[in-house]
C-alpha cells in the first residue's frame, strides 16, 4: 500500500513554500488557497516538473526526491489547465500514448471503459487538433487514467469549463477513484469543486499550510480571514 510522504521546500520570489504532506492509499486531499499561494508549486514538485530546494518526497518504496527522480519513472498522473494533447496524433493514440505494447493489450477493456464513460467514441479516430476544449479535457483525463496511476495530481483542471462538464468530470474521477483506489491531490481556488472531489483539505497561504481537516472543520472555523473569505465566496 503506497503512502505519499512529502516535505517540500521551494523558494519563491515573495515567500518560501514549506509544506508537509502525508497521504495513505485512497486518500483525497484538496490543496485550497488564493492564487499564488504556492499550491501549484507543491504539485509541480511532486510531479518532478520543478525540483524542491530541500525536503524529501517518498511514494511507497520509491524516492522521488532527493535525488530528483526523472519524470518518466514517477508512477503518477498529472492533469493541468492545459490539456497538452499531442496534436499530431488521433484521440485514440493520445489516450493510449502512455501504454507500452503489452500494457496496451492488457488494458483494452479498461480503455474501452474510459472511452465509453467519457463519451469519446464519436471522436476516437479524430485528430486531436480538431476537437473542442471540453472534448480535449475529457481526452486528457482518459489519457491520464489509462495507465491506472496510483497517484493522481489535479492542478485546476476544470478552469474554463462549464458547470455541467465539470460536474460530469468530477463524477467520473470519483467513480474511477473507487475502482482504482489512487491517492488524489487536487488544487483549485474554488471550494465547491474541491469539496465534492476531496474528503480532506489543506488550506495554503504564503507557501504554508495554515489549516488542515475535513471541509466541515474548515468552514466551521477558518483559521485566517483570507481563508474565511475564500470559503464564503468559493
Amino acid at each position: 500500500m503506497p503512502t505519499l510522504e512529502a516535505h517540500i521546500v521551494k523558494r519563491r520570489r515573495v515567500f518560501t513554500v514549506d509544506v508537509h504532506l502525508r497521504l495513505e492509499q485512497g486518500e483525497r486531499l484538496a490543496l485550497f488557497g488564493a492564487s499564488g499561494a504556492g499550491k501549484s508549486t507543491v504539485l509541480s514538485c511532486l510531479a518532478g516538473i520543478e525540483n524542491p530546494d530541500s525536503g524529501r518526497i517518498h511514494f511507497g518504496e520509491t524516492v522521488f526526491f532527493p535525488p530528483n527522480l526523472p519524470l518518466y519513472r514517477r508512477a503518477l498522473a498529472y492533469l493541468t489547465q492545459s490539456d497538452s494533447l499531442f496534436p499530431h496524433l488521433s484521440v485514440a493514440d493520445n489516450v493510449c500514448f502512455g501504454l507500452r505494447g503489452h500494457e496496451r493489450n492488457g488494458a483494452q477493456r479498461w480503455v474501452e471503459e474510459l472511452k465509453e464513460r467519457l463519451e469519446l467514441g464519436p471522436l476516437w479516430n479524430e485528430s486531436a487538433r480538431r476537437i473542442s476544449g471540453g472534448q480535449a479535457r475529457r481526452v486528457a483525463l482518459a489519457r491520464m487514467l489509462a495507465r491506472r496511476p496510483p497517484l493522481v495530481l489535479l492542478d485546476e483542471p476544470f478552469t474554463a469549463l462549464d458547470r455541467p462538464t465539470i460536474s460530469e468530470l468530477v463524477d467520473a474521477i470519483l467513480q474511477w477513484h473507487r475502482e482504482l483506489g489512487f491517492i488524489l491531490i487536487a488544487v483549485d481556488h474554488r471550494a465547491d469543486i474541491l469539496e465534492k472531489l476531496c474528503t480532506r483539505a489543506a488550506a495554503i497561504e504564503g507557501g504554508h499550510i495554515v489549516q488542515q481537516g475535513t471541509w466541515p472543520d474548515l468552514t466551521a472555523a477558518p483559521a485566517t480571514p483570507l481563508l474565511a473569505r475564500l470559503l464564503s465566496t468559493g
Partner: protein
Amino acid sequence: MLAFALALLYPLAGLCAPIGHWQWDGSIPGSTASAVSVSLILTGIALLFDVALGTPVAWYLARHSGRDTIVWEAAVLVSVLMPPLALGILLSLAFGPSTAPGAWLLRMGVPTSNSPLAFTATQIYVSIGYYIVAARAALAAVPADLERMASLLGLRPCQVFRRVTFPLARLGFAAALSLAWVRALGEFGAVIVTAYYPSGMPVQIWINLQDAGMPAVLPLLVVFLLTALPLPWVIHLIAQRRHADANP
C-alpha cells in the same frame, strides 16, 4: 506582385541566351559527371555530419535559456556569418602544415587540402550553422509542455524525441536539411581554397567558364540547378500547405 515575381525569376531567362551550341562532352579538364558525383556524394556525407552533430546542439539551444546559451549561439552565428572566402582561407591556414593540428593530421597521413576529406570538412563548416539555426527554430516551436507530458506518461527522453518532438518538428527539420543542402552543394568561395580538387559542381563550372566559356558552363549549370533547387522548393511548399491546413 506579378512584376516583382517576374523580376525575381528573370535571371532564369539566361538559360535561353543565344550563346551557341551547349558543350556536353568532357573535352574540358574534369568531366561533368565526375563533378556531379563528387558534389552529390560528398554533400550527402556532409549532411549526415550536420544532422549527427547539429541536432543535439540545436536541441540544447532550443531548450535552454541560460547565459551560456548566448555564447553557444554566438559561436554558431560566427559560422553562419563568416564570408565563405574568408572561411576557406582560415580553414586552409588552421589545418595547414604551420599549425599543430594541421601538422599532426599531415603526419598521420590525412590530407587537409585538395582531398575529399577537405571538401567534406569545408562543406560541414559552411552548412552546419545554417542547419543548427533552422533546426533550433523547428525544435523551439514544439511546446515544451508536450515533451513534459510525454515524460510524465512514462517515456524516456529518446522516446519523447522520437514520438513527440521529431514528428512535430519534422517539416522544420526538413527545411533545415534543405537549407544546409543548398548551402553545402552551392559552396564555392571556401571550397575553391581548400579543395580545388576533387572539383564539385561550383568549382567545375568555374573551371569550364575559364577554359571553355559559356557553352561549356550551361549544361553543368542546369544539372546544378536541378540538384540544388527542387528539394528546398518542394519542402517549402509542403510546409506552407501543412501550415495552412493546421491554421484554417
